[in-house]
């Protein structure tokens, strides 16, 4: 239908070649073309964080990024993080601290927290709160999400 382009990028550690319409978002590519549904659609407008992925070491809303802009980059999604043993303590902390209810926001929260802890391994509670500001959760009231990240950062403030 629309104009397409072939792109190549590293996705969760493997090189991928995909042909995508130029108007397609990275979120649609991940979910509909590559069938990686761990990255969620919550708003499509960069306002909820459910679609958070890591691109070249930065946390990004996949719904705001064009798929073609993944070309040549390194992209990590929740599927990549879930397969990475190094992220086990964070995911386990989410589970153990009761940070998961309906769970729809959780992949985005895990991604954002992963990035946050990479930037600031010993983040304080206030830094964690600010770091999660762009991720909405309707169920938990955030406290247990903050507790989970704080458990990993080892903060007691």
């Amino acid at each position, binding site marked *: *239908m629309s104009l397409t382009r072939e792109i190549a990028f590293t996705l969760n550690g493997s090189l991928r070649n995909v042909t995508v319409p130029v108007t397609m978002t990275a979120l649609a590519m991940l*979910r509909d073309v590559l069938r*990686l*549904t*761990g*990255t*969620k*659609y*919550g*708003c*499509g*407008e960069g*306002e*909820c964080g*459910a679609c958070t992925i890591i691109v070249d070491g930065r946390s990004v809303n996949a719904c705001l990024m064009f798929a073609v802009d993944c070309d040549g980059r390194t992209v990590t*999604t*929740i*599927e990549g993080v*879930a397969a990475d043993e190094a992220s086990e303590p964070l*995911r386990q902390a*989410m*589970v*153990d*601290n*009761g*940070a*998961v*209810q*309906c*769970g*729809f*926001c*959780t*992949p985005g929260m*895990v991604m954002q927290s992963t990035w946050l802890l990479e930037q600031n391994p010993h983040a304080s509670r*206030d830094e*964690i*709160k*600010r770091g*999660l*500001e*762009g*991720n*909405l*959760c*309707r*169920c*938990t*009231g*955030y*406290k*247990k*999400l*903050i507790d989970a990240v704080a458990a990993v950062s080892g903060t007691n403030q």
Partner: protein
Amino acid sequence: MTTKTIEKNSLIGRRIPKMDAPDKASGKTRYIGDLNVSGQLYGKILRSGRIHARIVRIDTSKAKALPGVHAVITAADVPDQRPIGVNKDHMPLKGDKVRSQRDEIAAVAADSEEIAEEALKLIEVEYEDLPTIFDPRDALKPGAPLINDFKKDNVAMVFDYSHGDVAQGEAESDVVIEDSFELHYVTHCCMGVSGVIAEFDASGNLLLYSNTQVPFLHKREFAELLNIDPGRIRIIQPPIGGGFGSKLDIYPFEPIAIFLARATKRPVKLMFTREEEFLASPTRQPVILTLRSGVRKDGSLTFRTVDTLHDNGAYTSWGATTPFVMMQTFSSLYRVEHCLYKTTAVYTNNPYAGSFRGYGNLQATFAIEQHMDKLAEAIGMDPLEFRLKNAQEAGEVTGQGMHFKTCGFKDCITTAAERSDYQAKRRAYKAAQGAPGSVKRGVGIASMLHVGGGAKIYPSDGCGTILKLDDFAHVTVMTGASEIGQGSETVLAQLVCEELGVPLGSVTVVNNDTDITPWDVGVHASRTTFIAGNSAIGAARKARDKILNAAAKVSNLAAGDLDLRDGFIVRASDGQVIMPLAKMLRSLHFSDKAELVMTTHYYEPPSVHQDKGFKGDVSAAYAWATQVVEVEVDTDTGIVTLLKVWAAHDVGRVLNRLGIEGQIEGGIVMGQGYAITETLMIENGVCKNPNFRDYKLVTAPEIPEMDITFIETMDGEGPQGAKGVGEAPAICMAAAVANAIENATGTRIYKLPFTPENVYRALHPALAEAAE
């Protein structure tokens, strides 16, 4: 010979992580949007561009001609469609006229979402505008336009309740006050948007992948709607991305997806965009409420008269029935001899309201708890003492017939007040109202009563369980209860573990398929832990009896002297191991007896249906809570900052501490949003902020500090003593914040939400007026 012994190890009251959390934290959980059925088409809905208009002509020919389009349907294509909703006043596809912005007039099934959207743009509709109603007060005026022709007075629903004689109550009063309150639109904002997949098999049986909270009620309703045998409908519920009451009714998109599947003979997946979610999901019921209350000088309440006007929107969903809950708060939260309650719900061209966590109780509590402060002030009594004087106690039967078998209300009040130092702070902040500086502090208190043991609204309030143990002592619990994120599967597993002495990892809960699970009325009224919990316990006890009776025969001990612990059959007195449970099960299975341990249980709570006057003990238990909040109000900007919440909840008993804390915290923050940040802006029937940029949900940095105390009253009917708690924590917040703003500033605000603009206007009426 060393004999192994096992001590009793209870999971009740512990911090048990949610069983499905590891998958959810790994992105492995597949919600409705993540499911795809081979051969599926994508459905999209064309909504009205007008608010109230006659549909003169719809032309779908261009849309039909678009390559990749498989069906375009309008009301004319589904002559057999039937109305949905509580009043059966809502056609899924509108043929004659549209009555609100969200109205569905056509739908497309296509090879992709993009093509379906393209096709919508090609549908031509001609309208003829009709006069509108946006203010519910206008709906009752003589000569008002009619929204639904069969309702000549625009009245969708009326509720009348009374006990005692309010005239006598008024005569006995030393002080009488009356105020009006206005409660706004907010919406659920489930993080997962709505969606459905509809598929017919070759024999005409319908399979729905649905997010419903009430699968068994909906099975019946869909059958009526489609005029097919309910036995031919199967509903599978994939994990649900948030419910909060929103999935308690059928909405037009569901029948529309089914019509598209029928027309194309293909599975049809229909997902909302976030904008659609804002426009076309139900709201919390907006209310205009007048409350008149009286009190004697000694601090005893005399009467309450309540009159509410509910904006029903264009169609009727559960919002119109929130008076069921609202009247309980007025009649029974505090002892009051005389009470008169009336609601009129009227049709307008606004969005319509559904059920939303708390079900009218946030609105009722907002009014009643502000009045408690005002009445106390009027008679010069401390507001805490005033509340304690009128608070219900265990054993009471209220004017409405509610029987409080356990009641931790007074404990809730004193606990929240003591932990927050409410009285001293209140006095200090009141004294500081006139002090220099624009930033003021205040504390506010509010309490609530809510059903905590189900609610007998439908013919049955029950839940069924099927339980089986396999040869390896793995337990499968098939429950009717739906899981919407609240943690029911974990609590049910815990309760079963308690009876069968198996580790949590040995239990699987199946709760999502109407072809497998037994009937349940649905997730609503905070009932799942209580009702489904008792049902699961019942099934587990039957299995336990069967196992212990068999074990008694081989161990030469009485069944009553045996116990199940950690996967073993043991002697109850000292925990000495007799044999592994799995071995016992295999010996039953593979012996001459050839028996499997499979049990069923149906639990119906010992509550009653209310009579025509809404009287009767509608729930098997009642939950209580008090919340104290501390706020900071910047009088120069109108910004209200919620600093801390002290919550004391009578929950019967804590079953899963982690889960119940999560419910309370999430509810508090949802209540904070209702009070301070959220508003769905409806102007002349049009939603002005259908996105998260302009609809302000609370974010992580804004949450208050939370101090939560559980009051354990060990309810005699509750599962292990527990009561339902899902809705309770959201209910008090708006009322408590209103009282805190008054304490900080001396100004009482009767209208929600407490956004900076509204608060500023209330604090500086002259300035606000001058600026206009």
